[in-house]
């Protein structure tokens, strides 16, 4: 989602369309006497390149792949988080607008808040992962003398459950708790698993097939009054045909 580009394109569109009757006084984004429509000129999403890493270091890659594979383990219902592309998904998100906190209010002063006031730390999501994954590995080394990725699956589960349940405190920083880090990894993993495949996860629409979500379909008029009858068609994604 290149928001910058979308904005400047819109600015351009608005001004071009308005040129003939542009009020000389105000600036380019003035529109009068016309509907500045431009069919099919919108900002389609760009599918991520599935190769390589844009944000994570090699150490981080191994760690996050281990995490997503425990949060979403491979079993007879679906492939695991790693094979589904969740780590790639998170990598691309952290390399982009989300990772840089472009949406967020990031002005200080940064002070501890109440849970009802939400996250109050000064780290961007990218910064939180950088610190969090290192702290997770430090914890694994301190307790098991090995990196998180080298632990047995049951040990990995125990560490994650401890973070989830507030029983393990990683060395993070004030305003960014271990529980917050865990929730962030869980949320982002599920995003990768269930989002449209164009973002790098949900390979082959495996999660949609698993739960019976038809994906990017846009018209259910033929099924609205078929009550208690499973929807018959397979999922589609934004850029693929039926999977």
């Amino acid at each position, binding site marked *: 989602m290149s928001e910058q580009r979308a904005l400047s394109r819109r600015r351009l569109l608005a001004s071009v369309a308005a040129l003939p009757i542009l009020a000389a006084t105000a600036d380019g984004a003035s529109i009068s006497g016309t509907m500045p429509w431009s069919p099919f000129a919108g900002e389609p999403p760009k599918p991520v390149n599935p190769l390589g890493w844009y944000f994570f270091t090699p150490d981080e890659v191994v760690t996050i792949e281990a995490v997503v594979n425990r949060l979403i383990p491979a079993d007879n219902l679906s492939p695991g988080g790693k094979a589904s592309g969740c780590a790639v998904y998170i990598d691309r998100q952290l390399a982009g607008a989300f990772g840089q906190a472009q949406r967020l209010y990031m002005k200080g002063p940064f002070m501890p808040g109440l849970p009802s006031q939400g996250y109050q730390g000064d780290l961007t999501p990218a910064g939180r992962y950088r610190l969090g994954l290192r702290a997770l590995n430090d914890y694994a080394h301190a307790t098991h003398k090995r990196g998180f990725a080298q632990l047995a699956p049951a040990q990995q589960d125990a560490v994650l459950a401890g973070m*989830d349940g507030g029983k393990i405190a990683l060395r993070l920083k004030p305003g960014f708790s271990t529980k917050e880090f865990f929730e962030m990894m869980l949320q982002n993993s599920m995003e990768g698993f269930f989002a449209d495949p164009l973002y790098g996860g949900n390979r082959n629409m495996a999660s949609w097939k698993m739960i019976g979500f038809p994906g990017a379909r*846009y018209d*259910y008029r033929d099924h609205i009054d078929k009550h208690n009858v499973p929807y018959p068609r397979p999922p589609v994604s934004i850029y693929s045909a039926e999977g």
Partner: protein
Amino acid sequence: MAKLLPKRDAVIIGLGWTGAILAQQLTEAGLNVVAIERGPWRDTPTDFNVAYMQDELRYAIRKELFLKPSVEAMTMRNTVAQTAMPMRDYGSFLPGDGVGGAGVHWNGQTWRFWSSDFSIRSHLAQRYGAARMNGLMLQDWGVTWNEIEPSFDKFEYLCGISGKAGNLKGRVVPGGNPFESARSRDYPTPPMKMSYAPTLFAQMVKEQGYHPFPTPSANLSTAYVNPLGVRMGQCTYCGFCERFACGNYSKASAQTTILPVLMKKPNFELRTECEVLKVNLAPDGKMAKSVTYIDAKGVEYEQPGDIVVICAYALMNVRMMLLSKIGAQYDPVTGQGTVGRNYCYQTGSGARMFFEGKHFNPFIGAGTLGQTMDDFNGDAFDHGPLDFLGGGGINCVVTNGRPISNRPTAPGSPRWGAGWKKATIEGYNSSMGFSAQGSSYPVRENYLDLDPTYTDRHGRPLLRITFDFPDNDIRMSHFMSDQLEKISKPFGAKVTTVSRAKKGWDAVPYQSTHNTGGAIMGGDPKTSAVNKYLQSWDVPNVFVIGASAFAHNAGMNPTGTVGALAFWAAQAITTKYIKSPGKLVRA
């Protein structure tokens, strides 16, 4: 120095739902109007493309169409004893951004508040005695049902609302809402088709003696041409509705109902990506002379106008008034001042049922695909023996089955690791829910003002929200949860969960973008910021349009009433104010 521009008859701040209505009505009356909108231009074929609108991550999770807190944030706290902190991301509510405002990505549940809401104080005093309202700042809105009803009609016909009348000119119509106030004619289009869950809900509550009816919907059941000649299409139940724009021209918004006509008018000009910083008053503070705005390049302009109409969304309306010193700040200690007063929200709770052997297809949905019962809303039931006032609509609305955020699982299920997938598969297609959308009544300590510490990108103070659910509303909501529990029993679900409201409003999980009050309408300038025509008592060439005018919030979504107030205020401007500018009401 700001560049001075030629004067206009009217300057509109924000081109969202209300801004578009005001622009349309004022230009129709011949006024030369400029609207100044902070966000980008947006239209259906360019920006709401059916080839990629159905992208949950982009629109629902990363919130592409919404206002970014980096542009304008707010601070919040539950009580005056706490320090307000900025909402670094919006969560509990999601303000709009850009042409069409929040109307681009709303659900479209389109209600009329009741006669007993507009005259709530008189009504409750007569039925239960004024003492029952102790501790609540309930007051009449200054406008009566008979005055405002034609404006509701205008908004519904503009939008093409799909629904079924329950009370036609005083005659109760079976199948509609028997508790609604008398309407002059039926809805413009028939109700939507119903999927399984709302159908089952209606059947089960009807058997229990309640009065279900199709939720009035701005997702249209059929093609429609509105009075402006703008054509809308039939809703496809796509399930990418709220948080998304409609690619099918089926959801009423400024784009689908007004802009194709408005944008062609020679006496209308729109400036996008221009943020209004403040309304400038004449030296005596009694008249507005212009607004100052800043464009995307950072250049400041001063746009003079005879009338200034603030249509920036309820919360931003209040901030704009405070930054511009229009009216006096409300003080919760002394009770003096009017701007910021009677801030209200919505008090929700919900039930979810997990079945065996039922299949609901939750992804077949729409922002307003559902059934409602109002048997426990407002004052439809006797509060005599109860320990609270107010109530809520009970709604079974199937909006979506988008899986990143909508994966209900039975209580106690794991959220990750072994076991969560099985629980997710079981819950996804075989559960249904319904919820109570409870009223929110004003109390002394819930209010809006400017934050003393945090500022926006231009260095101006952020709005500060001080809010918690009042005890009255918590008791009301617990009563509603009890009703949800009772109602759900005969459904025969394997497991049912019912949530219960707690003190401590949490800014993180989404609740509703139904922020009301802060610049309320009324009959007395000591207790309201605007008069019954939404005209500022203090600066009479300023009109403030939106849910900011609500003196309390009912157990219904606000925009039907917001749209009606917009038409009502526009009518006052075009038929009364321009003939004789000045105060429309003598206090």
